[in-house]
Each structure stands twice: as C-alpha cells, then as structure tokens.
C-alpha cells in the first residue's frame, strides 16, 4: 500500500498539467457562457444572462441535437458491445496462438489517421459508392440507399473507430473471470450457455460498464467523424459547438453548449460508476 503523501506526490505532475492546461481554460470559459454576443461588436458590456442555457432547453433545434447526440452515443455503445464481446471472448479464451494475431487485428485500424478512415467510409457509403453500386448491380436494390450524411453513416464510422477500445476493455474483464467459478457452475448442472449467462456475463460486468462509458463519452464528444460522415446538415453537439465558435464566432453560446455537454458526460459517468459499484462490488 502506498501512503497518502507518496500517492499525492505521484499524481502531482499529471494533476498540475491537467489543472493548468485543461481545468483553468475550461473554467475561464464559464463566465463567457453567461455573456451575450453581438455580431461584429463582441460581448455586450456589463450584461450577464442565462439566455444561452435556456435556449438549449427550449430551442427545438438544440433539443433535437442533444437527443440525437445521446441516441448516437447509446447506439454506438450497443453496437460496439454486441460486435466486440464475441471477439473479446475469443481473444481471452481462444487458442493462445490466436491471441496476438487477433489483438493486432483489433488495434490495427487505430494505426490509421482518423481523417483517412473517414474518407474511406465516404468512398464506401456514398450514393455512387462501392456498397450501393455493388447492391445495385446485384439487383438487390433498385435505387441507392442513403448511407451517408445521416445516422447510419455516422454510426458506422464511430462504431468502427471506437470498437478497439471496447474490445480491449472486455478482454481484460473476461480474462479476470476465474475459470474455477465457471467450472463450479458446470459441475452444478449448468450447460455451457447457462454458465455464460449466469457466471461469465455478470462477472465481466465491470468491464462491460467501463468499456461502455469509454465508448459513450468518446462518441458524444466526437467531432471529426460526425462532421465528415454527417455532413453540414446532420449535426451533433460537438459539430454545433465547433460551428458556434469557429463559424459564428459566438463564444458565449458555444461555451454554454460545451458546458451542457460536459455536465451530461459527468452525469453519465457518475451514474455508471454507481451502477458499477453495485454490480462489481460483489466480485
């Protein structure tokens, strides 16, 4: 056990960097979010308002963007979980000589630049892209399906990008499930399926939650992929914030949105950790 004083010393370097270059600038934006921006004139002097926050709750456009961002996060997390668990299971439990190969395969997409990967998806998913052309020529479709600049496109792109995070978290969790406990269930009369449902799945729950939080948080704050695969019209919170800051120069409204997103993220992490404590506390 490390003593508290030594513990503090060990985390001090990172804590200082985060405090100086992350926390301080973010907090400096807090007052900004209560200002009003007058185009071409800057902030109205001496005027403070809750208008920027109220607008997020009342404005239909913002409400839809928030709703869309959250559902996107949920869908991508679910997709990563469903696609990732079987792979993670094979990596954790399969033949040892497959382990290295599969792990490399899972990590491999992360070696490519984000923009390159997103362009790849555009080539594949466009109206005259590889997928549509193939399906049209095979006669499966009579007209191209819209796979880009909508939920489908953004979801495919984000799932692809964040799947490795989920898989790596799940592999660690599944490898932590004691084989003896599974064997005990089997000798007590559990079929292989029941062993999985009654023992392996609940005991890997901490990893499922950790992976889900990670993917969810990364998804709702992703900017490049939604911008490229969602186009200028299919907006999520991160792209709206970007536009407010960089296109409209309305830092006040951008800051308010950014804080709303941060608040949501923190709330979701807090909720999930409470859940994790209740589940994982038992293992």
């Amino acid at each position: 056990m490390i003593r508290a004083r030594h513990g503090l010393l060990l985390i001090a370097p990172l804590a200082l960097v985060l405090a100086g270059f992350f926390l301080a600038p973010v907090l400096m934006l807090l007052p900004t979010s209560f200002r009003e921006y007058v185009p071409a004139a800057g902030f109205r002097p001496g005027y403070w308002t809750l208008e920027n926050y109220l607008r997020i709750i009342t404005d239909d456009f913002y409400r839809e963007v928030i709703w869309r961002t959250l559902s996107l996060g949920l869908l991508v997390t679910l997709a990563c979980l469903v696609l990732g668990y079987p792979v993670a299971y094979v990596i954790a439990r399969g033949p040892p000589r497959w382990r290295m190969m599969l792990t490399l395969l899972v990590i491999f997409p992360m070696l490519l630049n984000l923009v390159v990967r997103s362009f790849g998806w555009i080539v594949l998913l466009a109206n005259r892209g590889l997928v549509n052309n193939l399906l049209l020529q095979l006669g499966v479709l009579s007209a191209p399906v819209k796979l880009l600049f909508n939920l489908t496109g953004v979801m495919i792109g984000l799932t692809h990008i964040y799947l490795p995070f989920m898989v790596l978290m799940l592999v660690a969790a599944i490898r932590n499930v004691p084989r003896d406990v599974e064997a005990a269930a089997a000798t007590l009369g559990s079929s292989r399926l029941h062993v999985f449902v009654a023992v392996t799945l609940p005991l890997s729950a901490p990893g499922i939650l950790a992976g889900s939080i990670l993917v969810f948080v990364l998804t709702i704050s992703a900017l490049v992929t939604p911008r490229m695969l969602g186009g200028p019209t299919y907006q999520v919170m991160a792209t709206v914030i970007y536009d407010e800051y960089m296109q409209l120069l309305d830092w006040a409204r951008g800051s308010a949105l950014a804080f709303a997103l941060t608040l949501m993220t923190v709330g979701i992490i807090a909720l999930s950790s409470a859940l994790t404590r209740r589940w994982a506390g038992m293992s």
Partner: protein
Amino acid sequence: MSSLTLKNLSKSFGEPPVVRDVSLTIEEGEFVSLLGPSGCGKTTILRMVAGLAAPDRGLILIGDEDVTRFPPNRRNLGLVFQSYALFPHLTVFENVAFGLRRRKIGGAELDRRVAETLARVRLDSFGERYPRQLSGGQQQRVAIARALAPQPRVLLFDEPLSNLDAQLRDAMQIELKRLQRELRVTTLFVTHDQAEALSMSDRVGVMARGVVQQLAAPEDIYHRPTTAFVASFIGKPNRLSGVVSLRDGSGGRVRIGAELELAAIQIEGPVGATVDVIVRQEAIAVRLGRAAQGEIDGRVVLRSFSGARVQVVVRAAGGVELIAEAPSSGAIASLAVGDAVALAVPSTAVFAMAPEAGGP
C-alpha cells in the same frame, strides 16, 4: 449415491504422461484420498472424473453408468475447489441454491433444502451475506454446502483445506469427516497433505508420476508400504545414500557410510547397488548411554523443539547423521547437545530404493 470406478484411465499433455493406466473403484459411501506430490496426476484424475478434462484412454463409471463422454453438467457430481470458487455475485443462499435450481427445484422445497444444507455446515444465519463478507473457513463451508445441496452421486474434493491456516484445517478435517460419515456420500479427496489423507480416509491411494503406487487403508499405507516410494512419502523420512550389502526375501541389509549397517524390511535393488535409504524419524528410539547389542552409538549435535514434538540430530559412527523425532514429553526431551546416546532403529522403519526415484 453410487460407486465410482476408473478403468485404465490415461492422460498426457505431452511427455511424460500425467496419468498412466489408473484403475480403481471407490465403493458406495467410501472415502478415498489420492495423495501425492504436486504433478503426480491426482488433480488431473479428479478433473477427468468431474468432466473438466477428457481422458485419452479409459473409462469412468458412476454406478454402472459410463459417464466418460458426459459433459460436467450431466454427471451429477459435487466438486469442492481449493480456491472455493464461490459465485461472488450471488448471496450464500443463492450459491447453495444454484445446483438445486438447475434441477428445477423451487419454492418451499428449495428454501427447505438450502436451509437444511446451510445448517449442516453451521452457517444457518449467513444466507443473505455475500462470499466476500465471510472468512476463509466460512467460504470453504459454503463451497461444501453448495456441492452437497443437490445430493450428488459422488463428492470430489480438490485440496479443499490447503488455503486454511493450521488450526482451522484440523477443525475442518474433523468436520468434513463427520459430514461424510453422516451422509455416507461416496467421496474422492485429492491432497498433498499426508496427515489429511490418513486421518480422513477409508482408503488412501499414494500416487507418483501418474501411477497409483498403493491403494490401501491408512494403517497399511503407514505400516506396510508396498513400495519404497510410499515409505519415503509417508511419515518423516531420513534420506541417506547407501549400498545394498545383503538381500533376504524382500528386505536385507544396507550399508551407510563406512561403519553403519542397518537391517531393512524392504529393498529395491540387488546386492552392491547404490540406493537411497529411508529411515523413519519417528521410529528411531533414542536413549542416554552406550549402545547395547544391535544399537548404534551416537552423539547429539542439534535439538529442535516444536511444541508437541522434539527432533534431535544424532551423529553416528562414520559421521552419518540421523534425525530422530519423539513426543516432547518423553525422555528424549531432556537430551542436550553433546550427550552420548544409543539409537535403536527397527528394521520395519528402514526402506531402500533406487536413488532419487522418490522425487516427483
């Protein structure tokens, strides 16, 4: 409850084989231990019986039913692990109920049988707790209750007591033995602890290198070992290097060093062969004074007191050192370093075998 029969069971994970052609029958209600050093194949046998490993050759029968190819969930066995392997996410009640629920038992019948089994292991009031809230001994009792609850045909134990401290282990040995006698459940117990195996079992099988060397009652294993390996593994041996000087039936005489010769009840090797001589510490009698006919002169060089027992190291003629062990309340306890003593070594406590053959 049923008997358990192994026929010509073999298993290898490469060379050499882990289990070689093992055949044995455990009668209905009998308690049999497999005892041996780590790597002797005893745990592999247990895992094959449980269905967690597949034998390369041979048959496993429970009663008259051939279960060799059955998956573990269709064998109706109870298995208690060294690591306890409790379900950490379930309460004690649900742990014990697990096997019953798999057998479609529910409602009042389930409650009754879980309560009954928990009472058997004296954990009546612990049903709502989680395993992590229990001590090691309590967790072990939950593991036993969980295995017992579905009334398995055969109960298997894989070194269940080796994670407990010494006092608790002794108490659990007695508790386990009483439980097994009450329920008359056929039991296969795997351990590397000879005291455990000897004190609890109806019969003990001593294993080495994948082979059951001797399967017999504890008294026979201790007093009448059929192989020198068994003799070297049971009790507290002095292990000395010697040469066979005379063969007479299964025994004879062995020479240790230049001046010491002992009668041995069992010798594996021809006259002139170099052998490891096993002399049981607890069989050597030590008294103050000069040696009489058939005794050995020596001098105490070290005395080691460990509570109930005391050990003395005696240097005999030719510099050979023998360790003798006795209850600390007897005359041996008053010996001091430097005392001249006489040793009597009964031939029934001396065995000789090919060098290092006793190693695992």
